[in-house]
């Protein structure tokens, strides 16, 4: 049996009087690909933000790889092995494609500020290693041709791919994808599905995915959690979710009626 990687116990957060998410319970095992769905405003991205340290949960416990993550800041969360992409693309627009990936590779390098200022050998070897590894990632995503372009000049679909490449460059165990297919056409979505399957295999990743594209979610996720109004309303295999009356009522109802 694969081991438990992420455990979310009774986690909730409120902003002032507004309860955004409450009693969230999730478990993720090594190697799983799990979907998190729900109507707009259900609290999916808020949950992501709690998992990555952007928000501090006001109740409950998040345990990742045996460590409590509640009070970690985002960079500590990333260092302990959780990396993410953003719903609204948040690339470093004025940096080149290569440098975007290098930034994520940052915490894996060790050369110090002094070695860089004095240009000691450790600076050169460290930077060369970062460059090599970053180009490797770009190659997997077919972005190596554009590595000297500024990130803002890439077409939309490629910016999405670059976000995933950048998240992977931090060498996470758990990858959180926040609507990776948003705004993509069917062909791009299809390519993305293949890409997610590929990187999962290649990097032995565990993936948690927020997505509105039901084809994508039902197609690749092994288990699905459904959120509505900040509450977990259902959990199970895609088949179970598809037939869950609560889910249909909250979310899929409109789609089925279509």
């Amino acid at each position, binding site marked *: 049996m694969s081991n438990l990687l992420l455990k979310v116990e009774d986690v909730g957060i409120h902003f002032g009087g507004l309860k955004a998410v409450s009693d969230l319970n999730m478990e993720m095992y090594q190697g799983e690909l799990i979907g998190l769905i729900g109507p707009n405003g259900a609290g999916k991205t808020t949950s992501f933000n709690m998992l990555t340290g*952007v928000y501090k949960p006001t109740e409950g416990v998040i345990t990742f790889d045996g460590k409590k993550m509640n009070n970690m*800041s985002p960079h500590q969360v990333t260092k302990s092995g959780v990396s993410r992409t953003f719903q609204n693309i948040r690339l470093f627009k004025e940096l080149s494609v290569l440098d975007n990936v290098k930034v994520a590779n940052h915490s894996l390098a060790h050369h110090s500020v002094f070695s*860089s200022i004095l240009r000691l050998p450790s600076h050169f070897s460290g930077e060369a290693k970062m460059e090599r590894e970053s180009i490797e990632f770009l190659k997997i995503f077919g972005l190596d041709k554009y590595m000297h372009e500024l990130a803002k000049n890439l077409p939309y679909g490629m910016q999405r791919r670059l976000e995933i490449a950048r998240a992977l460059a931090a060498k996470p165990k758990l990858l959180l994808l926040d609507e990776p297919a948003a705004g993509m056409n069917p062909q791009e979505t299809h390519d993305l599905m293949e890409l997610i399957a590929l990187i999962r295999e290649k990097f032995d990743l565990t993936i948690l995915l927020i997505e509105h594209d039901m084809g994508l979610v039902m197609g690749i996720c092994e288990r699905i959690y459904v959120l509505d109004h900040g509450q977990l309303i259902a959990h199970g295999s895609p088949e179970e979710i598809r037939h869950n009356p609560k889910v249909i009522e909250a979310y899929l109802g409109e789609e089925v009626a279509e």
Partner: protein
Amino acid sequence: MKKSKVFWIYVAIALVVYAVVQFMISSGNFDMYYSNLFITIAINVILAVSLHLVIGITGQFSIGHAGFLAVGAYVSAIFTTNLGWPFPIALLMGAIAAAIAGLIVGIPTLRLKGDYLAIATLGFAEIIRIIFLNIDYVGGAAGMQVDYLTTWTYAFFVALITVVVISNFTNSRHGRACIAVREDEVAADSMGINTTYYKVLAFAIGSFFAGLAGGLFSHNFFIIQPSQFGFLKSFDILIYVVLGGLGSLSGSIIAAILLTVISLYLQDFPETRMIIYSLVLIIVMLYRPAGLMGTKEVTDLFKFGKKSKGGNVNE
């Protein structure tokens, strides 16, 4: 390999400039007026480049740079004039004091963003100035007598070291982390970058070099007064960075040189000086809103054809 070659070419050019000016000064072709001009240029280049690291690279809009200049100026002056220490050590002490001041100011204020940070740093710079104004040991408002020790050699080499250190810092994983903070702080944090650490680090390094400039500045006149370090001085430095192009190291150097020369020549027209100076700024900002160099460096201008420019991503 290639990159380090380019680096040494620039250092060589700088050394030639140094040698020519030094020769002109020692042979008596340049009088005090000109040697002072060159020293002032070097000091302003240090200030511009150090603020460039804070604003242009790390994106933290600090407008209190004159405060750190003041710390460096006073502390180094105390070490030479009152304690009789050698000038280079006094310069270093001033810089270290300024860096510590930078840490003290930076740690609480750098959690603020944008306008709030600007106002906080401006306030801190005023506090520093007023502290010196009220310490009798450094002469209060009447000012402090300082030995004239700054030479072109000191000024030039400190400026050269500043540029090399900041350029080396920028072109490393640490500089990239700072740029990532400037571009998108939330994303940088989520990519494993300790954003607070890098903001404070950039701020402290910037303050350190502002302190070095302060040491050169105070020993270039016979007297320093708190009124020389008011917020107008901070704005002068800010103007070098903005006019040169936010994010461009060579831009801030060029702007610092240009504006120093312009303001010196305009001293002959005291009535219209600020009008002409302001007009220059307005015209540059109208025609080059991103600054003289934009985000480009001088080195980029010699790389035609090597990089494909934007817009042809789809081949």
